[in-house]
């Protein structure tokens, strides 16, 4: 087992990893930028080292700085959290070269899944259902139009192969729109990702975003830990996640679980990961992408299968084998991502000082957060300040509990998304489980 883990991240996930390391008796090193010198997780780490100024590129994304920190503290493993360098193949390779274990995927796995059009090719070859689309990148606009008319059928979506976060994407409904969108999409992709390669997919209308948590050990065994429903998203950013999905029955879970295991086995996946699917109203599911890291919403899976996923992740990285048994959900869990944003002013970020803080508690209520009264939210990073997670026996009880807990959660001094999430818990369609990824587009609050 590792002696000392360096956590190459910040905020709530850094604290999350430290908590599990303490339980495992593993020493921790926290790294921080000058903007995070008052972060509370530094107090709970065994060592804390400043690695750079506020901008992420000079600190949390700066690979030499993070490796140097591992060097001078003698850390034997690095946990990259999510975001930042967690899916950076170069960093994974750098760790290998320096004899430090990267608690995540190998450079080959990251490269394999990071390039979206490559990933689809690999999945198709493995027999994982994919959204009908182009074989690899489109050579020309006319090739795309031919495919859209003859094979896929409109509406189609053109996507940047190096893309993410909803950028470099255009949905088109006919040939004219296709021609119009082609050049602007490629320009946007080149600017955002330095790569204007585009591929084409059938646009699945009103899909649900349902993902399967998987785990693979170093000996080729893979298992699944059931699904999470993350359809409630605003501009491709998840707001609410839950496990299990109100749309998935036992049969669909088994089919999707099998497909996710096939996907992971095809690349000999090691560690914890997530396979994302789009599910249409007829319960057809299509591979969308694979995330080779721990996800923000991992707590809802933890609550319904009763295992610490960070602990599993560290054990897998240390070479401990799994049994290969799958895990099915017991009860229901919901998570709200609480961001310091003003939902009534177009979600404008609201950095500032938290003057009064009261976190909700009670049976089945969990708060994963790094904030404290007096904490100044730095403006340099993302706006998520807390994750509020509830667990209950049924979905109905979980919604009631989340509603109660949100109303009890006091964060004064900054604006947060809590008022919006309270309204969501009161919405009849949400309560009935009638929602797709389009839900937030028309939700009135």
């Amino acid at each position, binding site marked *: 087992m590792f002696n000392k883990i360096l956590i190459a991240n910040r905020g709530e996930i850094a604290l999350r990893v430290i908590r599990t390391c303490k339980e495992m008796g593993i020493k921790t090193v926290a790294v921080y930028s000058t903007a995070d010198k008052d972060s509370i997780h530094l107090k709970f780490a065994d060592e804390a*080292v*400043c690695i750079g100024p506020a901008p992420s590129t000079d600190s949390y994304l700066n690979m*030499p700085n993070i490796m*140097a920190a591992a060097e001078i503290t003698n850390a034997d493993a690095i946990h990259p959290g999510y975001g930042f360098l967690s899916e950076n193949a170069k960093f994974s390779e750098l760790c290998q070269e320096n004899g430090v274990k990267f608690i995540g995927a190998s450079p080959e796995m990251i490269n394999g899944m990071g390039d979206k059009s490559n990933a689809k090719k690999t999945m198709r070859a493995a027999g994982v259902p994919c959204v009908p689309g182009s074989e690899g990148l489109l050579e020309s606009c006319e090739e795309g139009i031919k495919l859209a008319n003859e094979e896929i059928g409109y509406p189609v979506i053109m996507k940047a192969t190096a893309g993410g976060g909803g950028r470099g994407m255009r949905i088109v409904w006919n040939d004219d729109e296709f021609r119009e969108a082609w050049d602007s999409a490629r320009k946007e992709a080149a600017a955002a990702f330095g790569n204007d390669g585009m591929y084409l997919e059938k646009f699945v209308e009103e899909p649900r975003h349902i993902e399967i948590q998987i785990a693979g050990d170093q000996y080729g065994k893979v298992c699944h830990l059931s699904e999470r429903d993350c359809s409630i998203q605003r501009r491709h950013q998840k707001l609410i996640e839950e496990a299990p999905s109100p749309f998935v029955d036992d049969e669909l879970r088994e089919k999707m679980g099998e497909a996710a295991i096939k996907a992971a086995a095809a690349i000999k996946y090691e560690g914890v990961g997530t396979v994302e699917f789009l599910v249409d109203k007829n319960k057809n599911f299509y591979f969308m992408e694979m995330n080779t890291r721990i996800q923000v919403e991992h707590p809802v899976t933890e609550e319904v299968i009763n295992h610490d996923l960070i602990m599993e992740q560290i054990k897998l990285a240390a070479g401990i084998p799994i049994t290969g048994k799958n895990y099915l959900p017991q009860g229901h869990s919901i998570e709200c991502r609480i961001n310091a944003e003003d939902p009534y002013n177009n979600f404008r970020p609201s950095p500032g*000082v938290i003057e009064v803080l009261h976190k909700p508690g009670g049976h089945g209520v969990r708060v994963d957060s790094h904030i404290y009264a007096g904490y100044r939210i730095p403006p340099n990073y993302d706006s998520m300040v807390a994750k509020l997670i509830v667990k209950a026996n049924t979905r109905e009880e979980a919604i009631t509990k989340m509603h109660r807990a949100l109303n009890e959660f006091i964060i004064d001094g900054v604006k947060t998304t809590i008022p919006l999430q309270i309204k969501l818990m009161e919405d009849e369609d949400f309560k009935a489980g009638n929602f797709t990824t389009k839900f937030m587009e028309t939700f009135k609050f």
Partner: protein
Amino acid sequence: MDLKEIQTLVKLVSNSQVDHLEVDKKDFSLKIKKNAPKTELVSVASAPAPVAQPSAPAASSAPLAQTESKSNDAASGVEIKSPMIGTFYRSSSPDKPAFVEVGDEIRVGQTICIVEAMKLFNEIESEVAGKVVKICVDDASPVEYDQPLFIIDPS
């Protein structure tokens, strides 16, 4: 050295301008350090400034501590802080002499130390000219970003 001798030495340091005394004998060594009291008086005078700010009482206690330590160093010179994280070396290799010693006059752009990270040796150049008053870090010690390395008295 017996207890009485040690007590004499401690008294000597307390009552004088000496703030750092080191005694090295064959079978024992003694180090006595103290902060120069006169600079602390200067920083107390500047303490009222944070209180004047219209902020919550709890918040103003933090700036006080920072002001104290800043004026302590400001009294002695300009800090050169580490621009990166790594291992600090005073010379380019173990058999070469140190780039600078206390008392040396240095110019802008002069190499004053090396910070090594991942087998890359980065020469750190001074951004100020003046006299080296203090070397804050021991040779071959780890340093983090923004950690004070040298104090320079600008001429």
